């Protein structure tokens, strides 16, 4: 199980993505933005960071890197691809995923531990979770608000292609019927429909703003809830 991890100039979370692959029992293969082939990997991760400084628009310049042409071709043939944060933005810019990510509604960069609900456990990257499960992983981004036109949103919702959703403030009864009044915060960035991550029509390409690769070990992350995504991948390629 060889998983390519792309490094663009300005990529930051490539070491973390590679570590997560290793924790899940895979082999991480470094890929460079200027590479013109994927070295025979079974899957690709486009990690977080600030590729090319994100100066024009997040992901706008990275999308044109030579390696991305290969990723688009491979994805179109069914290779699992995961875009995290800046990687999600790049996949949207490259039209592998619909929609776009815009400046957080409150205009500030937000780094916080974020509860997500798993809405779809049938993608290449989410089979290890139960549907409806809630996981806690870091979110850290300044332009994480998912936006798409209504038709696209309806299509995503209709086809069950929202994979992760931010869990927002709610009151719910606890076991004794009381109000547990759990505080988990508001939508962190103004994303439409509280969307945190989506998938392609075939469920092979997934993009999300939060960082599962920072939640693989409770020593350095809030939980190890994120590891499930990488284990799912290893499962999916083994069974495929």
């Amino acid at each position, binding site marked *: 199980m060889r998983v390519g991890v792309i490094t663009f100039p300005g990529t930051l979370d490539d070491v973390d993505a590679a570590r997560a692959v290793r924790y899940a029992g895979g082999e991480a293969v470094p890929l460079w933005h200027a590479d013109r082939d994927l070295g025979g990997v079974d899957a690709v991760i486009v990690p977080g960071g600030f590729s090319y400084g994100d100066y024009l628009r997040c992901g706008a310049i990275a999308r044109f890197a030579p390696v991305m042409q290969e990723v688009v071709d491979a994805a179109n043939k069914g290779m699992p691809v995961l875009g995290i944060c800046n990687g999600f933005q790049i996949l949207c810019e490259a039209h592998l995923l619909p929609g776009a990510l815009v400046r957080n509604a409150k205009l500030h*960069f937000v780094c916080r531990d974020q509860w997500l609900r798993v809405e779809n456990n049938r993608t290449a990257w989410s089979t290890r979770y139960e549907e409806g499960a809630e996981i806690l992983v870091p979110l*850290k981004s300044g332009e994480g608000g998912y936006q798409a036109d209504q038709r696209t949103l309806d299509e995503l919702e209709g086809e069950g292609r929202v994979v992760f959703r931010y869990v927002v403030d709610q009151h719910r009864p606890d076991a004794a019927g009381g109000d547990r009044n759990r505080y988990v915060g508001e939508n962190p960035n103004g994303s439409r429909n509280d969307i945190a991550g989506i998938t392609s029509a075939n469920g092979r390409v997934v993009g999300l703003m939060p960082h599962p690769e920072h939640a693989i070990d409770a020593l350095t992350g809030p939980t190890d809830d994120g590891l499930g995504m990488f284990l799912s991948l290893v499962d999916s390629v083994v069974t495929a």
Partner: protein
Amino acid sequence: MTVDTVANAENTPDQEQPYKELGLKDDEYARIKEILGRRPTDAELAVYSVMWSEHCSYKSSKVHLKYFSDTTTDEMRAKMLAGIGENAGVVDVGDGWAVTFKAESHNHPSYVEPYQGAATGVGGIVRDILAMGARPLAVMDPLRFGPADAPDTRRVLPGIVAGVGGYGNCLGLPNIGGEVVFDATYAGNPLVNALCVGAMRVEDLHLAHASGTGNKVVLFGARTGLDGIGGVSVLASETFDDTAGKRKKLPSVQVGDPFTEKVLIECCLELFAQRIVVGIQDLGGAGLACATSELASAGDGGMRVHLERVPLRATGMTPAEILSSESQERMCAVVRPEDMDAFMAVCAKWDVIATEIGEVTEGDRLVITWHDEVVLDVPPRTVAHEGPVYHRPIERPADQDALQADTPDRLARPARDELLELVKTMAASPNLASRRWVTQQYDRYVRGGTVLAQPSDAGMIRIDESTHRGVALATDCNGRYTRLDPYAGARLALAEAYRNVATSGATPVAVTNCLNFGSPEDPAVMWQFEQAVKGLADGCVELGIPVTGGNVSFYNQTGATAILPTPVVGVLGVIDDVRRRIPTGIGAEAGETLLLLGE
């Protein structure tokens, strides 16, 4: 453009020069003339004036800082690989690892342009750590602001926080702690101190020096522009040729480009790994003037620099401007000729502009030419290491006794039924309220090594994934205590940072500082400074850990009012297995026993 050459300076000994506008005193200018045996050229004047500034020469603090070295015993020095005088202190933390850390201030630029000032403050300290040969691992940001409800704080605070975050987040350096303190004396003079910590294998330690005749001097990173040329613009007006266009050469604010710095970091680390760097220096405060003179001064030869080769961003820049430009994201390296191809290849891989601008020469002169004409010819030590030294007058402030006599005893004690209200008021006060508005703008997870960050007492970073060895860091300072008693205040800052590191489970091993004070020309401020240095140094002796470096920032005042004396102290600790960290907080399990240690 006519350029003031050495030959020209010899022929026009009586030409008036704007040395006062450049901040030089009469006797300092006289001393430059004496060193050179003639009047300085424009370029020389620019270089001496920036390098002999308080910020670069430590002319008012030097005599006091010596107390740190004088009191450091061999035992305290045992683990220290580099100390005061180098770009940053370095300590051996075991298992073949060395850790380097340093704090620096960027106070005034952050007041003028909060976002960019704070951003470039982070950028500068990170390059200091990089120049030691280390991979930068984390940053911290002790901050001081005017009252939370003051109108200017609304301008300054959000910009500074966004700047610290914007730059650090983009570099991929987790922010593992800092401080946010409000006090009226910081209105009009906020403090932005930035600390960076990095790690390397002991054998990879790089010191800034230029040696080996024939070795090449390479400038790499961003292009040089008119950023922060400050007072040097007064030199431009006379020499600027009208026909080249009438651009007004205003000193401009430095704007950070964190992407360029991130790439520069990776490029440098690859160069270090290939062992093709003989000496390296970051370009900070005084730009090329500082980098070339410091490299040459610390080396065993001279240096020749061809200034017209420097890649520029602005047109019509004079040699003096190029030498004193504070453009960010640049480094200067000394490279053996046979390694030049490999060096350039690494830079090309990372798309980093690299230019051979000179070479190490025999002899002991720093010679800088502009299209083959000599515009600077100086003994580099006189620029970098033998600047003026002042014994400023010191006087205990007249109001100090009254201040100390005014104890809390005169305040009413709250009645029992007022306590709850009091606690609520305190919890909601700006100096005690949650810092989340600030800390959630900082990435604390990037690179997966952060073991402790906010809201912990100390930040902790894993430096070795296989052994779990790590370091912890805390910064502290209470300016109000220090104002009451600078000696005790500095000791208390040290003790607090030491405790914060110790309670995380790490063993404190070394100290850095960022000494923020008012004007050194005020004897009362100099007294505070002297007392604080003594207190900190004596405290270090008692605890048995050395001060490995630091930074002095004077002239922090609004009009005649100095800020509270603010000697920010940073303590570094070592932990051989970060899995044994002690998180902040109590009450993980029912039935825990609460113990109070100490008196």
